[in-house]
């Protein structure tokens, strides 16, 4: 693990907790899919927890993030509750988006999560725009733009990096390089160097072990602080791995990646296992305390899932609400 920054025990435990909450959320989401209780598909974040948590723990509530199709991790890490999240995944009225968004559009305005996005790269402009707002209105909020390695192929990124660099916007581009975009290895779809692409726009860039929550957090804290002072934008490439398929339905994936590779990442670099050992070794938590935390989170998740399963769907009359802010029913 990276050198521990200045945090106290409480901070570490919250980081751990958040990572386990993400993993637990995803396990439950997968179960909902497998038991045919979830509408549609979903993309799980398991394996990448240290990225979302390491970054979001360095942010304030008023800081913004934009998220992706693989967005549950970001959402939890930025402060969202299980209940509203599961309700959203099941299309229920009490979901964060009243069931209208679902997994790929989950947003949590109250915690500064401007939303998942089902268009790969689609939120790069939005994140940069949120940073623009901060600058224009003289706020010191920072925005983190999460996206995958695959999204670096989208031209939009280069357009907004150019403007962010010209205008010194407080935005951090965080590329979660999990080695794959869908069923294709990153090196088959990315020529040259991803880091060099950001650097070519004069953007300071860093690569970091995305399975080491302390390393991610320490780097992010530094960059966020500097971005607040107008020294942004920055780019971070976080080397990580997704444990499951591209989405819940991607079961047989040996044609594009080996079971050995998956096993290696899971057994030797799991961000939760690593951090847990560190916590215990440093005497921050005992094995028992950790187990108790895990169990509590499991129970929380179960309760939220049960709640969401029996929660009500939005009334059909909601179908034409929220098309416009100022028209109650757009089709009335």
């Amino acid at each position: 693990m990276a050198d521990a920054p200045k945090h106290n025990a409480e901070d570490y435990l919250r980081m751990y907790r958040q990572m386990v909450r993400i993993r637990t959320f995803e396990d439950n989401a997968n179960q909902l899919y497998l038991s045919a209780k979830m509408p549609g598909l979903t993309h799980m974040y398991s394996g990448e927890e240290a990225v979302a948590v390491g970054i979001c723990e360095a942010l304030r509530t008023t800081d913004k993030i934009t998220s992706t199709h693989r967005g549950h991790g970001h959402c939890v890490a930025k402060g969202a509750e299980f209940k509203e999240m599961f309700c959203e995944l099941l299309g229920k009225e009490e979901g964060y988006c009243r069931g209208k968004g679902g997994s790929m559009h989950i947003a949590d305005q109250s915690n500064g999560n401007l939303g998942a996005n089902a268009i790969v790269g689609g939120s790069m402009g939005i994140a940069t725009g949120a940073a623009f707002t901060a600058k224009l209105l003289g706020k010191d909020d920072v925005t983190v733009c999460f996206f995958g390695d695959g999204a670096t192929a989208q031209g939009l990124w280069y357009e907004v990096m150019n403007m962010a660099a010209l205008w010194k916007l407080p935005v951090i581009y965080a590329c979660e390089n999990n080695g794959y975009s869908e069923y294709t290895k990153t090196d088959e779809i990315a020529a040259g160097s991803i880091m060099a692409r950001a650097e070519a726009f004069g953007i300071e860039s860093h690569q970091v072990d995305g399975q080491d929550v302390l390393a991610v957090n320490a780097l992010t804290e530094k960059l966020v602080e500097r971005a607040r002072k107008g020294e942004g934008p920055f780019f971070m490439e976080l080397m990580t791995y997704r444990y499951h398929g591209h989405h819940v339905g991607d079961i047989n994936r040996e044609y594009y990646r080996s079971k050995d590779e998956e096993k290696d990442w899971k057994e030797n670099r799991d961000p939760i296992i690593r951090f847990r050992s560190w916590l215990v070794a440093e005497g921050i938590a005992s094995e028992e305390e950790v187990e108790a935390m895990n169990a509590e989170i499991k129970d929380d998740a179960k309760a939220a899932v049960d709640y969401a399963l029996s929660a009500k769907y939005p009334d059909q009359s909601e179908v034409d609400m929220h098309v416009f802010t100022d028209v109650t029913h757009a089709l009335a």
Partner: protein
Amino acid sequence: MREITLSQAVNEALAEEMRRDETVFIIGEDVAEAGTPFKVLSGLVEEFGTSRVVDTPIAEPGFMGIAVGAAMTGTRPVVDLMFGDFIYLIMDQLCNQAAKTHYMSGGKLNVPLVLRTNLGATRRSAAQHSQSLHALVAHIPGLKVALPSSAYEAKGLMKTAIRDDNPVVIFEDKLMYQDKAPVPEEEYLIPFGEAKVLREGSDITLIGTSSMVQVCQKAAEALEAEGIFAEVIDPRTIVPLDEATLLASAKKTSRVIVVDEGHQSFGVTGEIASRINEKAFYHLDAPVLRMGAMDVPVPFSPALEDITVPTPEGVVENARRLVRGEMIHAA
């Protein structure tokens, strides 16, 4: 009343709203010192500075995306898209992002931005700088679409658009920037979804949008000389569309021509004609007639370009035939 150009009217609307609300800013290519190639924004950067009149690189998807994010977080961007033809480049940010955010978030996020762009052919600018693409935008739920037909309309609609909490797209007619019209000194707004009856008539209704309002007005004048009294209506916004006013007129005159500068097929004329046919069918003496731009890319050659767009003469001829009761297509 004083007369000012459409260009000045837009400029005034922006200046007034920027004075009123510090969160309003303009973003686009050459909007600052150059004041855009059409010079519509001249003087604004001098008053509001480069932090609020923001020159961008030539990156339409990028600055449109930035505007969406800025709007979601507490500002009111006015995006300047130099030519309406470039809207193809920003469709994802406009239609997948801006248009859907409020709905997808269950009402929690909103995107109060204005996209200012233009439409109109016959400027010898060829196929990629002459399109009238408002129908594309109108098809996508979540976007409002305004089509000012004069300096007066341009000012009032722009001010309303900036205050609207939803994404609004305004298409100005680029041939009309130097056209003058009476515009009051006092502040006014034009509500969305209220058509304007420019001329009352009893024999036929001419519904024109944007550039085609003038065409309908000229046609109506010519028709009056022949004793045919045409009612001329400008819907002003096509989303929302003031169906009530259009239907009332259709029921009164029982003959309607819809004139729009977008391509005729799968466009605005079909929508308006269908709604009238559906809801005033038994009052109509003839089918609603549509006149859009030809379904061809806009040709460069002046010899060809001018015939692709509806003209007053064309409207007059069709109106005559409708009024005379000729069955247009031997239908």
